[in-house]
């Protein structure tokens, strides 16, 4: 239990809770940045075969991208759309926290049922990544501000990345780089989209983008 990886994983769960309960957009972006840094540290703590250049390179790429570049992109989108800095959720904060706890219990239960073969030092990597995925999906669905939806997507990606680290023995370096690049371009594109939506509509409330029906 004293493996560093467990501390990182518990930190990831705590960041989930804070994201679900946080009401200020700036805070959400900061917490997402911390989550990105923690996820970037995971491969270095998971490495079965020991430290290698590839793992270090990948880990640092993830930390730089998710910990610094994405928050910068998102803060810029937030700053240029001068709308309210409150999250404005569909589902209230307390209910979101409770949903997060339920998702956590569901992830642990699922892990007990699925019994995935894992290649990592910790017993709780799979439940934590599943709970990250649930939280990400929840944030995409239950939040109105476009930026929080993007943060939800990032959390989902974090969860999938952690799951991949746990269950796949040897993901080709090029594929991992490709995935990382895709996520980067996705956030970049979403940032531009938010900017254009705000320029047209004067808000970034995706709930009000409801003209097309039927």
């Amino acid at each position, binding site marked *: 239990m004293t493996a560093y990886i467990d501390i990182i994983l518990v930190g990831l769960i705590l960041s989930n809770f804070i994201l679900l309960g946080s009401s200020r957009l700036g805070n959400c972006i900061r917490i997402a940045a911390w989550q990105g840094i923690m996820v970037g540290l995971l491969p270095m703590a998971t490495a079965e075969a020991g430290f290698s250049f590839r793992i270090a390179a990948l880990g640092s790429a993830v930390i730089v991208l998710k910990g610094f570049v994405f928050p910068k992109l998102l803060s810029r989108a937030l700053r240029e759309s001068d709308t309210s800095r409150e999250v404005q959720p569909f589902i209230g904060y307390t209910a979101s926290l409770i949903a997060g706890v339920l998702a956590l219990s569901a992830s642990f239960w699922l892990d007990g049922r*699925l019994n995935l073969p894992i290649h990592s030092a910790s017993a709780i990597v799979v439940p934590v990544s599943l709970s990250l995925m649930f939280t990400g999906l929840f944030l995409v669905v239950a939040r109105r501000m476009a930026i929080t939806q993007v943060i939800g997507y990032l959390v989902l990606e974090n969860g999938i990345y952690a799951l991949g680290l746990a269950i796949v023995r040897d993901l080709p370096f090029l594929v991992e780089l490709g995935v990382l690049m*895709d996520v980067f371009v996705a956030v970049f594109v979403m940032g531009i*989209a938010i900017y254009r939506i705000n320029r047209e509509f004067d808000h970034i409330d995706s709930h009000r*983008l409801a003209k*097309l029906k039927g």
Partner: protein
Amino acid sequence: MSNETLILSVLITLPAVFSIISLFLPTPRSVLLLCASGTVLVALAMGTLALAVLGGSPVFGSNGWLRVDALSAFHLTVLGIVYALGALQTPGYFRDEIEDGSLNLSSARRYGALWFGSLGAMLIVLLSNNMGLMWVGIEATTLLTAFLICVHATPGSLEAMWKYLLMCSVGVALAFTGTLLAAASTGPSAVHGTESLLWTSLMANAASLDVMLIKAGFIFMVIGYGTKAGLAPMHSWLPDAHSQAPAPVSAVFSGFLLNAALYCIFRCLPIVETATGNTGWGRGILVAAGLLSILTAASFIAVQRDIKRMLAYSSLEHIGIIALGAGLGGVAAFAAMFHMLSHSIGKSTAFMCAGRLMKAYKTNDMRKITGTLASSPLWGAGFLASLLALIGTAPFAIFFTEFMILRTAVNAGDYLIATAFLAGLSVVFIGVMRYAIPIAWKPSESAPVFPAASPLEYLLVIVPLSVLLALGVWMPPFLTRTLASAAGLLGGTM
């Protein structure tokens, strides 16, 4: 370097080169002309490669990361046809917008760059043997096509773009989970290391994969790639995106983007089938998704008012039919492949005609677009004919594919599936005809102005429709062989 690898490298680099060139061209018109000519060039290269593979054996490249077999070659041909049709109509479609200045230089450059970029991304999807690389390609297509939707930043197009971007990114992320699970399922088998993502190694070792993991992976992939393909219930982005985008982009969306996502599911199907001992578990999921899509499309198509939205729901229906056919297997899989080809051709023509009608009547409300046969024989007749083709009127090709799928279902004793299928088809038929007849014949109050159609545009309408008509009556043996080898991968027979 052998011929095939030469063509492979050309195929991969050409779209990227054209994309960069379009960022530097001086006028919007030149960008669109580059779109047309560049796409035709790439399509010719694709055709050459496809011929080589279909005549011979699969082609490998890049250490086994790239592979073209019968299924990918067939899809390459369809991609080439769809993109070529779309690109050729682009200069004519945007002509009036360039003249009145609503398409300025920077938008045109962006359009050209994104057009070729999306073409390149779809090529990566079709050419890759590595499931991870295939995933990277699909995600890239989402990102690159997003801004093609909102060439003109109207509220509707921005809303459609945001919905499309978010839904498809989340869906494709789930598909990545499926890919990871598939790679993890190679645990008990002889595959090691980086080969766990290669389709060929997965296929070869399919019998020894971890059953539960590959099943879980397949479910995630159906949900994930199904979102991108527009399978119900993950289809809600589809009508918005297809209706708000300009006509050439909608043609490409309906004609190939959806097919590419289905292609990814089809790649996984034989692996799951072998791994689960051919019990039909994977097929059942596809059949269910297909039927659900057909019925959803049927319920919505009856209440449409927007002309392109109706065409979008028709795409949903056809994707459902393809999934249903692939799921049923046998002759139905062969029909599904044929359906992919005929639907793409028909839908491109339909979107092209609809786009011109919308521009002339200055509305997209179907109740106001009437009397098209009288005001413009070319576009009116083209639209009517493509609609008839799409809803499965004999003797167009789609009628025969739907019939083959129906026959397979009845022969297998799945009367429930056959009934639901037939019901969905009938509702769509009636719903579409309800609009097609007034659009063609009802005397119109407004006097629309149509620009003179160039000979190229005449060709672009007449040739695809005649091909659809001809294919319904007679299938050339070359095509039969191609479709059979493509469907063979899905467990299909003639």
